[in-house]
């Protein structure tokens, strides 16, 4: 039982890392993507091949996975991020699927559609948590740095940001590269957690899941994406006994939250002490206000 719980938490940490990456790109830079599973696949296969064939230690292998995903993301981003709106969304869908299909057909290196078994199970709970903490802290710094402000400027008003002298195209590509790194690391950790990777694991459904986690948690909120990833991972894990209904419940949760709270769970707020205080004081004020008005009416 303890192993099961540890497994869920490890998976949770892995999903959170990917969510952080997509959160930077979709939440803070405002570009909707449907292809980030492709970068996870690159990270996963790189780490798998490095540890299995070349017996590299797992930590450099994971980082190499992230870096390769980052480089591919950068190279892909230069021509395609000129596209705006839904054109980029569909293009990213095509790119993500193309990465998957290349991996599937490049049998001499990746062993094709049957998958890549026998990866050393290097992702233990502490490894995943350490990666998550380091990368979450780094993300907080990125978002609050001058780069983070530039990303947000690109999101809020593309034209105004470029008139203010921001090289918006450059920042968009940069944001994609960083989010590619996060997804690559997450994929590499996933490979070590499952000790088996298969191209189908990184299909369009995975990309959709990544982006819905971020919107679900709140666009433009790091803690929101983490909460979103946690809730949706738990929904799929806790309902595993009734596995048939699992995806149905997942879809329904997504629809209900979006219909009743379109801005996501956290909106653009971060889960800080102040935010929690504000919620409570807002409630207190409301109840005081109620009391006062009823008193007034009584008198």
């Amino acid at each position, binding site marked *: 039982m303890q192993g099961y719980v540890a497994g869920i938490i490890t998976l949770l940490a892995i999903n959170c890392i990917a969510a952080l990456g997509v959160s930077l790109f979709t939440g803070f830079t405002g570009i909707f993507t449907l292809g980030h599973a492709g970068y996870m696949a690159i990270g996963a296969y790189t780490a798998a091949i490095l540890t299995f064939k070349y017996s590299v230690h797992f930590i450099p292998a994971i980082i190499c996975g992230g870096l390769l995903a980052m480089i591919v993301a950068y190279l892909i981003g230069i021509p395609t991020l000129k596209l705006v709106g839904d054109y980029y969304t569909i293009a990213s869908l095509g790119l993500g699927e193309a990465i998957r299909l290349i991996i599937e057909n490049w049998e001499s290196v990746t062993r094709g559609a049957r998958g890549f078994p026998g990866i050393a199970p290097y992702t233990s709970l502490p490894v995943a948590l350490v990666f998550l903490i380091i990368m979450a802290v780094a993300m907080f710094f990125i978002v609050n740095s001058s780069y983070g402000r530039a990303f947000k400027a690109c999101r809020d008003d593309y034209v105004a940001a470029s008139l203010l002298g921001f090289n918006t195209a450059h920042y968009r590509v940069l944001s994609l590269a960083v989010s590619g790194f996060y997804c690559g690391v997450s994929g590499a950790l996933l490979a070590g957690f499952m000790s088996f990777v298969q191209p189908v694991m990184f299909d369009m459904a995975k990309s959709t899941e990544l982006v819905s986690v971020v919107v679900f948690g709140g666009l433009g909120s790091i803690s929101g994406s983490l909460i979103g990833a946690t809730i949706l991972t738990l929904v799929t894990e806790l309902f595993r006994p009734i596995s048939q*209904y699992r995806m149905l419940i997942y879809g329904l949760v997504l*629809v209900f939250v979006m219909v009743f709270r379109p801005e996501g769970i956290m909106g653009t707020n971060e889960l800080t002490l102040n935010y929690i205080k504000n919620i409570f004081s807002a409630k207190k004020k409301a109840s005081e206000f109620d009391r006062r008005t009823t008193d007034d009416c009584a008198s």
Partner: protein
Amino acid sequence: MDIIQQLINGLSVGSVYALIAVGYSLVYSVLLFSNFAHGGFLVIGGYICYFALRSWGMNIYMASFAALIGAGLSAVLVERVAYRPIRERTPITLYLLIVSMGISIVIENIFVVTIGGRFRALPPVIPMDPVNLFGFATTSAFDLLSLLTAVVFLIGLQLFLVKTKWGLAIRAASYNLKTAGLMGVNVNRLIGIVFFVAGLLAAVGGIFLSARYTLYPQLGSTITTKAFVAAVIGGLGSLPGAVIGSLILGLAEMLTAGFISSQFRDLVVFAILILTLIMRPTGLFGKSVGEKV
């Protein structure tokens, strides 16, 4: 004369994609969001047709009719239940997109839960026998029939959009929904009609696709990806663009599968998508949107 045969196959597949892509593009042109639940309507149509033929013993015409109406109504229902509350609250179309993804997961899994995820074949109601085309090539009656049906429905859609009052309203709304509303168009009813038409066209595509391949709950999402790609190649929101894009896609698929290898079929499709977008960022016929400052 292998090539002519592959060309006819390609046009036939492409025209079925066109039915789906046109519906998607129609919704996009009015509401400006990618409706990922579109594939769900296709699957709903396919299953209604399947059960109408198998369990209720209808003939193919009655069954198709039921499928078209059923899929159209379910599209209207989805709009009413899930999209309208968001539409009324916020102008940001991103939320609609996410909900449509949720809906597509829900529709897919409702079928998995209730009738199971196994592959089902439609009863042999659509003729499949080989036809000889003036000695040039042999092709199947099915290919010709699906090509013909798709053309008939596309012409029907065109007539609806050009000749009727609601068609005029839809064309007006595709320029500017808000202004159309100010001119006295009942926007909610208009969007309902758009969804009904989109669902109906998707069901036509769904019936032909489930006869060509087999019917299973995930059929929708694999096919819609292609229809989306086709619509984007042609230019989002442009109906002629969606048709041309679908034909290009169908031809590319069949020619690659016929002459290179069927493994590279999807890779070629995505390569065409990326190359088109790099050269023409708004697709072949898309409106280039200049941002106002």
